[in-house]
């Protein structure tokens, strides 16, 4: 068979795609889901690599759960497609479910079954699970398996959900707001579990609102807003595109108007006559240093923004300040 050099044939192209997708735990291409005239997600291109912990961030109604439900084939995409471990989310959904563990954002279970019975039922539906591992997870999360599901508190119900998602040691964990309802001690234990999963080379994809847990546990983050992915990158990358918050103390009066005219400089404010505070983008930093050098400087303090500030930056409406967007830190 002859093939034109340098121009991939359709078969080699699809092979390359398959190879590329198989190295991804999750790959979505132009994924769109609409509910009549309502928006779900639009043109979502997402790539979650094998062996990483991926945080999926977004405000309520942004499209996080819709994305997750498409991956789980609970709903069908209106357009585009999603691959999970290289398999088509719709066509190969049964095979996908063998390889993943899933915790929905909201779920219900059988009220009269004990925690142990519930987990054994789901273990059987997965073809059997090492009971000792279930016990160890229950011990670590302090879940009383003898109680009936209806007797559990919200946090304990969430633990049952977490254990059923993790008990069969899946290649990929898809968790929708997994720490919701957990107390701080159990949250820490959950983070440990996530780190262990990553160390074993398995993948975790979870949605969250809690910046500190994403910063602590994730390798990469995707931020979704109004159904569209607004940012995708590593934690370091995200905190790298950031702006710097500078506080300059001058020996004399602070040259406020000159700083306001500089490109790449925002939110210039005078704390008092000698102290000036501003937010500087990477491209504006050189100009700020050069201008500041023309004056007698007493002190210069720089602070990197937290992921939370970056997160809020992405959610902020144009012209809205961080305080207006809800940031109080």
């Amino acid at each position, binding site marked *: 068979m002859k093939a034109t050099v340098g121009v991939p044939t359709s078969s080699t192209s699809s092979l390359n795609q398959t190879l590329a997708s198989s190295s991804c735990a999750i790959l979505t291409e132009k994924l769109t889901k609409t509910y009549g005239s309502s928006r779900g997600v639009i043109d979502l291109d997402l790539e979650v690599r094998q062996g990483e912990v991926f945080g999926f961030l977004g405000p309520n109604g942004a499209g996080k759960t819709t994305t997750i439900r498409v991956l789980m084939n609970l709903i069908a995409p209106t357009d585009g497609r999603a691959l999970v471990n290289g398999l088509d989310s719709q066509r190969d959904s049964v095979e996908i479910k063998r390889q993943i563990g899933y915790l929905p954002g909201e779920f219900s*279970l059988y009220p009269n079954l004990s925690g142990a019975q519930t987990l054994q*039922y789901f273990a*059987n539906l997965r073809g059997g699970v090492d009971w000792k591992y279930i016990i160890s997870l229950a011990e670590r999360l302090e879940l009383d398996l*003898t*109680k009936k599901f209806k007797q559990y508190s919200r946090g304990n119900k969430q633990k049952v959900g977490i254990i059923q998602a993790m008990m069969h040691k899946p290649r990929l964990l898809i968790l929708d707001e997994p720490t919701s309802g957990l107390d701080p001690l159990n949250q820490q234990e959950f983070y440990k579990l996530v780190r262990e999963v990553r160390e074993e080379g398995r993948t975790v994809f979870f949605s969250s609102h809690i910046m500190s847990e994403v910063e602590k546990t994730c390798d990469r983050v995707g931020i979704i807003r109004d159904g569209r992915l607004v940012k995708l990158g590593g934690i370091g990358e995200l905190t790298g595109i950031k702006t710097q918050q500078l506080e300059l103390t001058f020996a004399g009066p602070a040259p406020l108007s000159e700083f306001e005219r500089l490109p790449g400089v925002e939110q210039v404010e005078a704390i008092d006559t000698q102290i000036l505070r501003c937010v500087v983008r990477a491209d504006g930093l050189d100009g700020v240093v050069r201008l500041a050098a023309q004056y007698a400087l007493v002190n210069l303090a720089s602070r990197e923004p937290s992921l939370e500030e970056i997160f809020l930056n992405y959610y902020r409406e144009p012209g809205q300040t961080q305080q207006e967007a809800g940031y109080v830190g």
Partner: protein
Amino acid sequence: MLGNIFLKTLRDYRLTILSWGLGLGLFNLFVTAVYGNIYSGPDKAQLVADSFTLSQSPVWPGGKAADLNTFGGYVTFRFLGMLPVVLGIFTLMAGSGLTRGDEEKGNFDLLLSTPHSRRSVLLQKWAGLVVALLAIEVFSWTGIMLGVALSKTDLDGGAVALTHVNFMACALVFGSFAMLTGQLCGSRKGAGGWAGAGLVAAFFMDTLAGQNQALEWLRYFSPFYYHNLSKPLAPSVGLNWGPFSVLVGACTGLLLAALLLYERRDHGDISHLLKRSQTVVGPDPYRVAKPRQLWLLNNFSFGLRVGLPGAFYWSVLPSLYLILGLSVFPSVRSELLNLLKSDVYKGLGYLALPTNENLLSLPIEVALIIPCIYAVVLVAGWIGEETSGRLELVLSTPEPRWRLLVSRYVVAVICIAVSISFIGLVFGLTAWASNVTVDPGKTFSMFFTGWVVCVIILAGGFGLAAFGPRWTVGLLGGLVVASYIEASLGKSLELPNWVISLSIFEQSNKPMNYGLSWASLSPMLILSLIFIILAVVRFQKRDMLKST
């Protein structure tokens, strides 16, 4: 409408008021208009004679016939006797949801955090229910009065209103009873089930038990008995304040008992009166042994474990009904024979054959309505799996959707089979014990046909649920009721034969007389298969609902 708990409760009932009110109003309009017209014509004597024959029936609701020669007495006996049962079903459904249903949904957690006492919350909700019932009765009253105007007959509006006051007192006894069972049962379903059992028992205590002197004392425990002692539309009876006061007293007593238990029990828990002992937790609640129950093995065995107790519960009432019916059968046999000769029963499609099989086909058909309702409930249970969010987790396992649906359908079919087999077995044993001779083959045919009717209801329900789970139960219930009315009243209403033949109940073709009719059953079984195939195809593709 959001000013306080009472108004909010009333607002929540607005669709219920409209659907029940319109349903009852239109029914009343229809019967008073049509029968009023006939009653004022030359066939009045025949109508009265038929009603007199019907009054001998051991299962006819409404108590003794009175003043059949007046239109008020006639409609009271012929049609209005069923209304307290219908309104009782409404109040028991609403009453069981009033505390237990709201607790299950989690609505009460926030409501009770507002500065209102439990007593105030409960009484405001109760008042909402009473006003909702009143609103439904206004529709009902309007329907009767419009029908009267159309047929140019004469009924006093005040007496019709008093009749509805009597209905209300009777129905509210069941509403209060349901609220009481709500304090003693851990779920709305359980509370509604027990209250429903109470209503059915009360019905039979008034009708069947009244036929047997040894059991007649049971009537005094039935609200229907006290209700039927008042007939405001029958001039010679009117409203009897004594029995009416008994109903009001019973309603108040049950309401107070429910209130007392509600105020004293833990929120979300059942009253300690019937509370079981708590599970003793061992020293290490984490290190529990692996559960070995076989029913946890897969979705099919799990479904059977969840479904089979229901199959038993749902067979208890029709079994009791048949036991009662068979125990009085020898004494009412000749009356039943006269009854079947009447035009009314001929209109319902019954033959005047003097065989036990023919005479018993009516009570068996009535008993088999319960498994049909159970089939609709099983469909509702399947939909509930999805709307409650349980399917979300089950479908995250490698179980294909088609297999899950088929296994749940097969479970439902088995549950119905178990239920009907149980009823059939009880019938056979009671007939044997009561020395009532029936053909075993024809009896089997009757119950088997009943099962096939349920199978198609289930298949239709699963099929509809695959397309629109949110409206399935309403539509399926409506179709089953319409189908039943078509079969039972189609000839009386002079519906075309092809319309009547569409009814699944018509297809059963009186198996107690003719045995199994495969010509009728085969199309139903083939249709069931087609519905299930359609359900599988659609369920494979459609979006799953988020939990509500």
